[in-house]
C-alpha cells in the first residue's frame, strides 16, 4: 500500500526512535553470555528471540537479525511512494541478492551440497532471479553463471573466461558488485536531484573502501599478472593509479593522506593493522553521511533512508555482539566494532 511521503517520513521518524539506543547497545555487549544477551534483548523492541535447537548459535542469531531487518525494509518499502520504493528495493534487495549469488558461486566452486549452500543464503525471496533452489541444484559454477542469462546479472557471463583463466571466482564476484553499483546509479536517476547525492556518496565510498582493501591484500600476496582493470572494474574516489600506488608503495600512510579527510578517517586503523575497524569506520561514515543529510531536511526521503541505514547498522552490531557473546569475548573488545546510534 503506497502512502504519501510525509506520512512515511513520520513513520520512519517514529521507528528511528524505537531503535536501540547507546545504553541498550552497551548493556547488550556487557552480557556475560548468549543467554543473558537474549534476556536483555527481550527487554527491547526485539522481544524474546528463540533459537532453540539451533546447530550453530551465532549463525541462527544472524538469521534472526537478518529477518528482523528485512521485515523493517519490507514494511517501509511497502509504504514508500513508487519511485523511492524502487530505489530502496534496488539498494537493499539487489545488494542482498548479489550477496546470495556470490555465496552460491562459492558453494559451487568448493563443491558444497545444495542444502549447505541454501542454508548460507540471506533469507530473502528471489528478486531478479527465478529461484535460489534452482541455482543451488546446478552442477557447476559455469552452469550457474549461464543460468543468469536474461537477468540483470547476465554481465557475469562475460567474466567466465577470467574465471577459467585464474581458476578463481573473484572476477565473477567483482562483476556482481559492479552490476549492483551500476544498477543502483541507474535507478537513482529517477529520484529528484536533491535526493541523489547521498546514495551516490554511500555506494561510491563503500566501493572505494572495498577496492582499497583489495589493493592492500594484493600488496601482501604473491605478485600476480592480473590487469588492474580486471581487479578493479569500477572505481570512484580512489582512481586506478592510486590503487596501483597502494599496491606498490612502501609508505601506505602517504597514499592514504593524499586521499582526503573522509578516507583518512575510515582507513587510518590500517596503520595498526586492524582492517576490521575499517569496516566499522565505513559503517560509521554511512551513519554520519545519512544523519547529516537527514538533518538538512527532516521531512524528506533521507529520513526513510536513514531509518533503513540505522537498522542495517543495528543488525550488523547485533550479529557481531551475538557472535562475540557465543565466543565469550569481553565487552571492551566488542565495543570498538560497534557503531552506536545516538
Amino acid at each position, binding site marked *: 500500500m503506497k502512502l504519501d511521503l510525509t506520512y512515511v517520513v513520520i513513520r520512519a521518524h517514529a521507528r528511528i526512535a524505537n531503535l536501540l539506543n547507546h545504553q541498550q547497545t552497551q548493556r547488550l555487549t556487557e552480557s556475560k553470555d548468549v543467554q543473558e544477551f537474549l534476556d536483555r534483548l527481550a527487554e527491547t523492541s526485539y522481544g524474546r528471540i528463540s533459537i532453540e535447537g539451533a546447530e550453530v548459535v551465532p549463525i541462527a542469531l544472524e538469521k534472526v537479525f537478518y529477518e528482523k531487518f528485512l521485515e523493517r525494509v519490507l514494511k517501509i518499502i511497502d509504504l514508500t511512494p513508487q519511485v523511492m520504493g524502487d530505489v530502496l528495493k534496488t539498494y537493499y534487495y539487489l545488494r542482498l541478492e548479489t550477496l546470495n549469488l556470490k555465496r552460491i558461486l562459492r558453494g559451487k566452486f568448493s563443491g558444497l551440497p545444495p542444502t549447505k549452500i541454501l542454508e548460507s543464503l540471506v533469507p530473502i525471496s528471489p528478486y531478479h532471479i527465478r529461484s535460489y533452489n534452482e541455482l543451488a541444484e546446478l552442477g557447476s559454477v559455469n552452469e550457474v553463471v549461464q543460468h543468469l542469462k536474461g537477468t540483470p546479472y547476465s554481465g557475469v557471463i562475460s567474466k567466465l573466461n577470467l574465471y577459467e583463466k585464474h581458476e578463481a571466482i573473484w572476477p565473477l564476484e567483482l562483476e556482481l558488485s559492479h552490476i549492483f553499483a551500476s544498477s543502483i546509479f541507474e535507478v537513482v536517476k529517477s529520484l529528484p536531484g536533491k535526493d541523489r547525492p547521498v546514495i551516490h556518496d554511500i555506494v561510491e565510498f563503500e566501493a572505494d573502501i572495498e577496492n582499497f582493501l583489495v589493493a592492500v591484500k594484493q600488496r601482501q600476496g604473491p605478485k*600476480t599478472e592480473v590487469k588492474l582493470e580486471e581487479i578493479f572494474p569500477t572505481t570512484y574516489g580512489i582512481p586506478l593509479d592510486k590503487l596501483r600506488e597502494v599496491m606498490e608503495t612502501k609508505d601506505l600512510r602517504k597514499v592514504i593522506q593524499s586521499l582526503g579527510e573522509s578516507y583518512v578517517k575510515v582507513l587510518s586503523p590500517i596503520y595498526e593493522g586492524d582492517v*576490521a575497524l575499517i569496516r566499522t569506520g565505513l559503517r560509521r561514515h554511512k551513519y554520519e553521511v545519512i544523519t547529516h543529510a537527514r538533518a538538512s531536511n527532516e521531512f524528506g526521503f533521507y529520513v526513510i533512508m536513514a531509518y533503513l541505514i540505522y537498522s542495517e547498522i543495528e543488525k550488523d552490531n547485533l550479529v557481531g555482539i551475538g557472535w562475540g557473546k557465543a565466543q565469550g*569475548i569481553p565487552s571492551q573488545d566488542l565495543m570498538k566494532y560497534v557503531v552506536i546510534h545516538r
Partner: protein
Amino acid sequence: MSGVRPTKGYLMEMKRRIGFIERGCEFLKLKRDHLAKELSASLDILKGRRKLLLNNLKEAYDALTAAYISLGPTEVDSQASSVKSALQLEVLPRSVMGVRYPYVKIISKPQITTDLDITLARAAEKIYEILEELVQLAEYEARAERIADELGKTNRKVNALENTVIPNYKQVIKFIGSKLDEESLEELVRMKRIGGALASRRK
C-alpha cells in the same frame, strides 16, 4: 605359608625366580629413569613452545574475531568454503622405550586463494603461520601424556616388586631355608644318636 613346599628343589626354583624378578626390577628402574628424563625434556620443550605459541595464537584468534565481527559468521563460513585444498595429515606411530605416541605428518597445507576478504585472509595467514607449530605441539603433548602415563605404570610396577613381591619371595626363601636347616639338624641329631647306639651295642 600355605602352598610352600619346604624342599631343596623348591628353594632352588624360588631363588631362580627371585633372581629373575630382581633383574626385571632393575630393568624397570632403568626404564623409569629413562622415561623420567624423557618426560622432563618433553615438558621443558612443551613449556617453551606453548609460551611462544600462545602469543601467536592470541594474534590469530584476534584476527579471526575481527573477521567474524566484520563479515558475520555466515559470510565467513561461505568464504572459508572457497578454500579448496584442506589441511591433510597422516598420523603415524612412533615409540620411545616401548611407549607408542602419535607422530603427525603434514601431507598438504590449505592453499589460501585470493578470493578471501582481507580480514579473513589475514586471519588465515596468521593461522597458516602457526599451523605447523600447532601440530607439533599437539604431538609433543600427546607424547608427554603417554610417557607420563607409562612412567606412572612403571613406577607402580617397581614399587610393587620392591615392596611386596621381592620381600614375599625373600620371606618364602628364608622360611624354606630355615625349615631345611631344621630338618638337616634333626637329621644330624638322629644320625648321631643312631651312631651312638650302634657304638654302644658294639661294645
